């Protein structure tokens, strides 16, 4: 009992020092930064990131902002005037390198023996006849129709290419100011990853502000309901609050930024950090009811004596489970693993020092009636029934759990990976509306660019590009395909007359190609093709615009591009933001497997070491395996995809889930050691330690319920899945493990601790 005396003797130190540490850790919190840039989730040297960086360095930022204007007919005078003013204003703004609108898109056509290159709209039509003439021209302009103006002329876009070194905030501010400067009656939707990032950013901040206090409030209410005394609520709550400060304070201290993943750190603290405190309080109440004559110090000593080992062990296994995230390929996942582990380690230390020190200074409360068996509470009644169930029908229980495992687990074959970052936002969100408009009316939000290197005036190469374009356009997901070859073909129609041998064809000599381009340079702007071909015509892009809201649809387009171009000697690399997304998806799955494997192995190893038995490792990992397989299977059945948020699940579920089994083992072994039969030991364990486990599990589940108000769909799924997996772990600990113990009667539990 040395440790217990030590804590009680120096209790004020164990109260004051942690408080000082917490206050110190709170200081850097003011410098916390949020960075929702999804690309940050990947290391910089992955193939997709390298390809995107190379293409961006050659052809500029490939990540445009899209403004959609919707009205009955965009060719009305008011809308066209507004578009003209906006287009001019955006041209002037330093934030943008390029503007594509009806006033900038080129119309290349042949007229009266001339090739005429003009903006689609040169003059705003004054009469109905002029307007219809313009409409007719736009319908024939493949650079504008269905790309800049929707098929029914109800929508038009302004596409802005962001200059390098401009922040998202500057972009959003300039657009807002400019739209305000030139107001109009059109409905304006804003799309593009800049808006996705800004939206995610503001929503993360909002979620932080709302969810954290809410989660704590729910926790306090539930603990008060369960323990029915304020000090029993205050202690676990303080531990949660202090460990949140520690884990969050670690971010600015390390120079890390909060992201959509790391926002989960405080939520995890709310869910996990009260774990240890709850068991202390439950045990204190149990002892207080059984031994009314004991003083608070005696109770504290006894609680600490019995709980310090299981609490340390559960803390360590939780940390091990969460540290599984450190081997994750995504940086924020690693950060989350480290920061959350640190917070939990602090919570663990507080639980075996600060909590008993505080308890020793407090007055003893009244014994709970539900524990003195005068009037059993709901939890206590339920637990007694469960104890009877598992001792009476262990085979039935095994059969039920086994069937459920098979049935649910079969869903794993349907499990899909999703890394379309647009899906982070709810479907009614204005950003998602913009996305669906672009998908329906403007060829799609996804872009893939294929870089070709070589002599870009070589007719053979250009004819191949033309062939790829024709083939790709047959794919129903593909909205548009563009390259210098399509421009040359448009020129060939403007330069030559219908029926001419050169009409609608890539010219068949290098000279003719060069001369077409020369001709164009007399009529158009030199930068007109900057997005398609470089200055000295040695590198060119094939830009494929398409719609894909799932990884399968994306893979389909990528495969087709690959199949077409794989043997092309001039093909260099394929790039695009959606490839980064895809890589992210694959990283998620990969990270998932690694973290999972790592966590289960470490936990099994810890159990083997602690109980000095291989059976304990197997038996202890069983609830984890059961939970993980059932969880993924259920995701498969319900069509919930693995994404960045849900990917964090397994490690966390494992971290939480193993605690229940350990607490059960510990008490069960103690009860067996005090001479009880297996049946009696199970009944006692479930009504005592089982109460702590149940209160803890429910507080975790309720803590995660608050995530349902998050605006991120992925966080909502995450909440559902966490609750589901905690429930599974709870059922395993309270039903499956007791039934198994009764059947196997494992030796390691019969040994005296």
């Amino acid at each position, binding site marked *: 009992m040395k440790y217990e005396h030590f804590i009680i003797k120096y209790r004020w130190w164990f109260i004051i020092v942690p408080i000082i540490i917490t206050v110190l850790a709170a200081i850097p919190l003011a410098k916390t930064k949020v960075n929702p840039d999804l690309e940050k989730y990947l290391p910089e040297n992955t193939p997709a990131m390298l390809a995107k960086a190379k293409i961006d360095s050659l052809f500029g930022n490939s990540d445009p902002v899209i403004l959609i204007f919707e009205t009955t007919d965009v060719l009305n005078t008011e809308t066209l005037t507004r578009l003209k003013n906006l287009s*001019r204003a955006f*041209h*002037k703004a330093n934030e943008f390198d390029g503007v594509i609108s009806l006033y900038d898109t080129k119309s290349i056509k042949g*007229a*009266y*023996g*001339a*090739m*005429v*290159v003009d903006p689609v709209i040169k003059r705003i039509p004054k009469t109905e006849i002029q307007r219809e003439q313009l409409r007719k021209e736009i319908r024939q302009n493949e650079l504008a129709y269905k790309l800049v103006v929707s098929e029914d002329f109800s929508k038009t876009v302004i596409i802005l290419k962001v200059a390098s070194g401009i922040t998202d905030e500057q972009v959003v501010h300039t657009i807002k100011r400019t739209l305000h400067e030139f107001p109009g009656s059109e409905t304006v939707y804003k799309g593009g990853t800049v808006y996705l990032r800004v939206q995610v950013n503001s929503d993360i901040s909002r979620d932080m502000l709302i969810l954290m206090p809410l989660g704590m409030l729910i926790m306090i209410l539930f603990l008060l309901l369960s323990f029915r005394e304020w000090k029993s609520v205050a202690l676990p709550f303080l531990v949660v609050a202090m460990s949140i400060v520690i884990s969050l304070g670690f971010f600015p201290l390390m120079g890390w930024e909060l992201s959509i993943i790391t926002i989960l750190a405080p939520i995890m603290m709310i869910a996990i950090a009260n774990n240890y405190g709850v068991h202390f309080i439950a045990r204190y109440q149990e002892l207080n009811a059984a031994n009314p004559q004991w003083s608070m110090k005696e109770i504290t000593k006894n609680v600490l004596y019995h709980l310090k080992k299981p609490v340390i062990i559960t803390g360590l296994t939780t940390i091990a489970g969460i540290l599984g995230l450190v081997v994750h390929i995504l940086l924020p996942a690693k950060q989350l693993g480290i920061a959350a582990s640190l917070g939990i380690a602090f919570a663990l230390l507080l639980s075996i020092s600060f909590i008993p020190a505080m308890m020793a200074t407090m007055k003893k409360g009244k014994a709970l009636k539900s524990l003195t068996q005068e009037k059993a509470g709901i939890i206590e009644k339920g637990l007694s029934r469960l104890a009877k169930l598992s001792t009476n029908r262990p085979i039935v229980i095994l059969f039920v759990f086994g069937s459920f495992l098979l049935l649910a687990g079969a869903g794993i074959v349907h499990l899909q990976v999703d890394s379309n970052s647009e899906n982070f936002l709810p479907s009614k969100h204005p950003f998602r509306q913009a996305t669906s408009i672009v998908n329906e009316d403007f060829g799609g939000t996804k872009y893939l660019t294929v870089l070709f290197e070589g002599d870009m*005036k070589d007719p053979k190469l250009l004819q191949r590009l033309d062939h790829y374009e024709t083939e790709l356009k047959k794919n129903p997901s593909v909205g548009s395909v563009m390259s210098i070859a399509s421009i040359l073909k448009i020129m060939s129609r403007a*330069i*030559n007359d219908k029926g001419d041998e*050169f009409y609608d064809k890539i*010219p068949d*000599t*290098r*000279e*003719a*190609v*060069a*001369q*077409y381009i*020369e*001709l164009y*340079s*007399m*009529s*158009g*702007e*030199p930068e007109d093709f900057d997005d398609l071909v470089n*200055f*000295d015509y040695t590198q060119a892009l094939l830009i494929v615009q398409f719609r894909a809201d799932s990884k399968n649809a994306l893979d389909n387009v990528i495969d087709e591009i690959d199949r077409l171009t794989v043997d092309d000697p001039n093909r260099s690399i394929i790039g695009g933001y959606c490839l980064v997304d895809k890589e992210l998806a694959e990283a998620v799955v990969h990270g998932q497997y690694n973290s999972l494997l790592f966590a289960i192995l470490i936990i099994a190893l810890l159990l083997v070491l602690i109980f000095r038995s291989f059976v304990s490792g197997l038996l202890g990992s069983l609830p984890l395996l059961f939970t993980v397989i059932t969880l993924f299977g259920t995701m498969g059945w319900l069509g919930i995809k693995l994404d960045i948020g849900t990917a964090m699940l397994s490690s966390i579920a494992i971290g939480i889930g193993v605690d229940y089994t350990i607490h059960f083992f510990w008490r069960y072994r103690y009860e067996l050691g005090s001479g009880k039969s297996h049946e009696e030991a199970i009944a006692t364990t479930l009504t005592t330690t089982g109460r702590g486990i149940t209160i803890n599990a429910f507080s975790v589940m309720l803590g995660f319920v608050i995530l349902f108000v998050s605006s991120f769909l992925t966080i909502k799924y995450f909440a559902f899945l966490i609750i589901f997996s905690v429930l599974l772990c709870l059922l395993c600990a309270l039903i499956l493990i007791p039934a198994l113990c009764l059947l196997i009667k494992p030796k390691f539990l019969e040994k005296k601790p």
Partner: protein
Amino acid sequence: MLFISTASWSQNAKEISTKALDVTDIDAMEMTSTLTIMDTKGHERIRKTSTASKKFGETTKIITKFTSPADVKGTGLLVYDYENKNDDMWIYLPAIRKVRRIISSEKGKSFMGSEFSNADMSKPNLDDYTYKILGTEEFNGILCWKIESAPMNDDLAYDNGFSKKIALIDKNSYFTYKVTYYDLNDELYKEMIISDYKEVCDGKYLARNMEMDNLQNGRKSILTIDKLQNGSNLSENNFTPAALEK
């Protein structure tokens, strides 16, 4: 009093600009020249051309043939530079043996993909601009007028691609040495240095070197006149679209 003096200054500014144009206004000449277009990374595109220009009545007719690089060799360009209306332009593409017209109303457009605009290459319509003397300034030790000219209205500014330009014009010879362009946002945009003036015939001069720096995108173009001959033996028949094909 003040009003009158401002008006007379303004008159002077336009006069100075007119004289600056007149001093380089040559009736007929033949020349070979090199246009070098450079991007920010130091890549170069070099075009060599031979040109003949001759005034027929009020219209200056200019015929240009590309001599290099090989893939555009033989490409011909014919321009009718009218005093008071948009230019007529034709191009001959030898690879497909066709003459095509080029219709372009926007003077601000690039000249052959260079940083020079079409407006820089032809004689401006003086009435499209307002002129102002900003004062005097020395350029390489030569005292110059500092003349600002700005397009009359927004549409003209948009067509020309600049909001104003400031020229340094030699007080004695009326040679223009430097022109600074400001974009529609009134920010510094391009800078043209004109040098190496040589007399072509009595009282008429031509600069052998023009250098245009785009200060915003970092690109640069240089036009050098390699050979120059006063007068041309070509007849008006040589300045027709049909003649381009020869």
